């Protein structure tokens, strides 16, 4: 009685190869094409292919016979299916190999042209020959097609048969009462005797004839395993072992200890088993029945060991601080042993089943063994749900979450009920799935938890890897956080990518199915009439990032090397840099979008309707944006200028595309939208140069003599060293009222931005001179 369960350890070893194998599996046959274009060579190649096709047809018949012979043996059927699929691929390759010959024939026929009167006989004969050959090739291709259809039909038939076998195993009902009687014990003794004698005879054979090979093989296998285990310990060191000294390890370190202390010993064990089996097989030490027993035993031991290490990592009965689940210590012990025994009993049942098969034990023994095993497993699982693992607020023991408990009771109870009702196949299946799928899901969950733990703020920084990285590359906090986030995403993806296929594989799906699903999924997802491809989107993002960083690098180079050396004005540099930056990002975005291959035509309709509203709303922003671009090009002012606009006055600090920052003399930053500069008048005191005119109004009383006042003012202003001679200063007599005479001093200075001391000094001197000359500003006394 067999069940189509794929053991884990084999898969664990093959995992590395699977990734490479997927690439190969997608490569569905390439060139078996004949390389030459010479007629003779391709003709011979065509003849070879015909032979190949005939050989495939013969093998197909043989396999069909085997199929019917082994209609109840799932393993043999699986092998036959693999062979059939390989033959189909060969068939396609052979068919494709006719292509060059066909092309040569077609080309020559085109050269010769259609039949015409008065053409030489040789030409007509050649045409006839070519046409006949082409027809025969087409016929052979037709035969190949029919054969391919037949082979594919057989493959589907095998899949159907296997599914039926599986369903039958689950639904087949055995008579428990008949199976469990006194004969069982006698049968058990007999079978044990047979097993012992089989193993003993093999051992004798080995000791007498194959001792050196056995020793060599075992030594090599041990070497490989030690290398892996030792290497793992050296590489990962303290992440491996739970340190009893640490009182409060971070969740991340607990997770990593559990993970590595499960993975590396199991991997070492798996390598040891795989190497042992492979080398024994290579040296021809194994007999067929011992071979199968050994494989089953190794699988079983590896699974139990894996579960043991996983459970001791999660429950950690001896070191409470390192527990992954916050359970009470007595509960941790109980849970650990429950999980371990569940795995042990199930594995034992599986191994026992294989032994029964190989030794061809009576059915009653098989049924009885599985009955007891599944009932025990059911009881263990129910006990697991019964345990009170947590503590509530008052410190009293608390049960599991009710949903979880219900699920556990259901599974355990279901197993027992199935066993008692006689559905042994079903009960065995459930208990094996508890262990295997449960193990995989738990490991995936741990992987997910570690990803969450890493992505927490500051967690990566505190971890050892994070500290090493930051020492090597001197990263700042924000970058480290981002690295932590990226790492956690990668771990999640890896967990899914490894865990899901494992579960599907051991549920009976084939690797080809899984890889073609993944390929289809990644390539094209169709929702209604919109289709997009994940690979395309990722490509688009990558292209955009590349473009973005290239733009930044180009900007820096342009600014640093080209413009700085050319002693270009600071304002121009700013403008050019900004323009280049925006252009680069835009181009990168466009290229990225087209690389992503997203077809936006369905969105165009909606976008059109929205654009009217958006257009109205974004009017001003776009206005500012365009004004910014004009400012960049026209440059009515540059950074550092003193401008007057929109009622504000100050120095320009930063010019952006939407707005410009002006700093007033009171050190207030005014952020002015760019449209103000373009749509209204803008005053710039320092546009061409810093030269400017200072106007100082002076008012004196009407009683004074205006000519004297004028002379004094002129003397003062011309006497000041900072007053420019060209343009010459002037004092204007603007007018008078009944009590006042109004003058204005108009003087030009070289630097209009710092006139305070100049004006102050002028005013001081004017007051002194007025007092000296006796000129009154107010009414005379």
């Amino acid at each position, binding site marked *: 009685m067999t069940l189509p369960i794929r053991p884990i350890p084999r898969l664990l070893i093959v995992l590395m190869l699977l990734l490479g194998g997927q690439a190969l599996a997608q*490569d*569905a*046959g*390439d060139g078996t094409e004949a390389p030459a274009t010479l007629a003779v060579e391709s003709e011979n190649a065509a003849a070879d292919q015909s032979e190949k096709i005939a050989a495939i047809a013969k093998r197909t018949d043989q396999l069909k016979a085997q199929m019917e012979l082994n209609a109840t043996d799932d393993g043999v059927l699986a092998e036959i299916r693999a062979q059939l699929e390989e033959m*189909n*691929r060969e068939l*396609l*390759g052979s*068919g*494709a190999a*006719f*292509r060059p010959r*066909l*092309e040569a024939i*077609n080309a020559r026929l085109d050269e010769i042209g259609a039949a015409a009167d008065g053409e030489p006989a040789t030409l007509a004969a050649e045409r006839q020959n070519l046409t006949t050959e082409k027809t025969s*090739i*087409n016929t052979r*291709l*037709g035969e*190949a*097609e029919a054969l*391919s*259809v037949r082979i*594919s*039909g057989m493959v*589907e038939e095998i899949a159907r048969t296997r599914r039926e076998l599986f369903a039958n195993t689950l639904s087949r009902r055995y008579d428990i009462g008949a199976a469990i009687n006194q004969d069982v014990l006698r049968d058990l003794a007999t079978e044990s005797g047979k097993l012992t004698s089989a193993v003993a005879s093999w051992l004798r054979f080995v000791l007498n004839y194959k001792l050196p090979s056995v020793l060599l093989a075992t030594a090599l296998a041990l070497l490989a395993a030690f290398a892996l285990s030792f290497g793992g310990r050296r590489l990962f060191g303290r992440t491996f072992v739970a340190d009893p000294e640490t009182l409060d390890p971070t969740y991340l370190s607990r997770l990593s200890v559990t993970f590595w202390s499960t993975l590396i010993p199991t991997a070492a064990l798996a390598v040891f088993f795989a190497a042992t089996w492979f080398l024994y097989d290579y040296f021809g030490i194994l007999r067929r029945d011992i071979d199968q027993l050994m494989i089953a035993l190794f699988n079983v031991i590896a699974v139990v060991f894996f579960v043991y290490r996983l459970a001791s990592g999660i429950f950690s009965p001896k070191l409470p601080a390192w527990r992954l689940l916050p359970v009470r210590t007595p509960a941790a012990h109980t849970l650990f042993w429950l999980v371990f025994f569940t795995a042990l009993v199930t594995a034992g049942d599986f191994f026992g089943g294989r032994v029964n098969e190989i030794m061809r034990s009576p059915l009653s023994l098989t049924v009885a063994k599985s009955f007891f095993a599944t009932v025990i497993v059911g009881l263990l699982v129910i006990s697991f749900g019964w345990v009170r693992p947590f503590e509530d607020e008052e410190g009293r023991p608390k049960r599991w979450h009710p949903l979880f408990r219900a699920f556990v009771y259901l599974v355990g109870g279901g197993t027992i009920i199935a066993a008692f009702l006689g559905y042994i196949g079903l009960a065995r299946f459930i208990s094996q799935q508890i262990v295997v799928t449960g193990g995989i899901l738990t490991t995936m969950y741990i992987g*997910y938890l570690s990803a*969450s733990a890493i*992505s927490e703020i500051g967690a990566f920084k505190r971890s050892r890897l994070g500290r090493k990285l930051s020492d090597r590359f001197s990263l700042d906090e924000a970058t480290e956080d981002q690295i932590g986030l990226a790492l*956690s*995403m990668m771990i*999640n993806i890896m967990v*899914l990518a490894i865990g*899901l296929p494992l579960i599907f594989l051991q549920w009976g799906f084939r690797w080809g199915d899984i890889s*073609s*699903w*993944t*390929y*289809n*999924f990644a*390539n*094209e*997802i*169709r929702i209604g009439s919109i*289709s997009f491809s994940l690979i395309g989107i990722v490509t688009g993002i990558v292209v955009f990032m590349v473009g973005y960083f290239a733009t930044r690098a180009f900007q820096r180079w342009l600014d640093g090397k080209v413009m700085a050396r050319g002693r270009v004005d600071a304002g121009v540099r700013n403008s050019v840099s900004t323009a280049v930056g925006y252009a680069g990002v835009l181009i990168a975005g466009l290229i990225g979008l087209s690389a992503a291959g997203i077809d936006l035509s369905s969105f165009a309709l909606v976008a059109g309707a929205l654009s009217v509203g958006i257009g109205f709303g974004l009017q001003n922003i776009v206005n500012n944006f365009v004004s910014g671009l004009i400012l960049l090009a026209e440059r009515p002012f540059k950074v550092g200028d003193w401008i007057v606009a929109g009622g504000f006055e100050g120095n320009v600090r930063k010019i952006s595309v939407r707005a410009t920052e002006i700093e007033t003399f009171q050190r207030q930053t005014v952020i002015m939208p760019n449209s103000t500069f373009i749509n209204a008048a803008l005053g710039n005191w320092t546009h061409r140069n810093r030269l400017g005119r200072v106007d100082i109004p002076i008012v004196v009383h009407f009683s004074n003599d205006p000519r004297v006042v004028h002379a004094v003012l002129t003397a003062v202003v011309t006497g000041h060293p900072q007053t420019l001679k060209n343009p010459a200063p002037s004092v204007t007599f603007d007018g008078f009222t009944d009590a006042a005479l109004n003058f204005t001093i108009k003087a030009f200075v070289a630097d209009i931005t710092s006139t305070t001391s100049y004006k102050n000094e002028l005013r001081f001197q004017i007051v002194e001179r007025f007092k000296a000359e006796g000129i009154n500003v107010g009414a005379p006394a």
Partner: protein
Amino acid sequence: MSRIIQVATLSLAIASPAMARAATVTNLDDVDYTLAVTEGTTQSQVTVAAGESIEICSQGCFLTMPNGDREVLTGPEQLQIQDGRIKVQ
């Protein structure tokens, strides 16, 4: 947020996605052609309109043109129909 993404990815992974077809056939003539495509055990008729480009056969198939020419595809090939003849790039 990341949990939502994971659940979505999981469910999409389990749901069967649309079949992506790998070999491309481009019709460079002015007439439509109907090809007989045998893939696995299924035989179907696929029409390529004039100037149209379609994708067929992700895992190899046998093609038959209306004029009797046969072609065997093994994967992602690029085919062109010109003057009634089928050519592989």
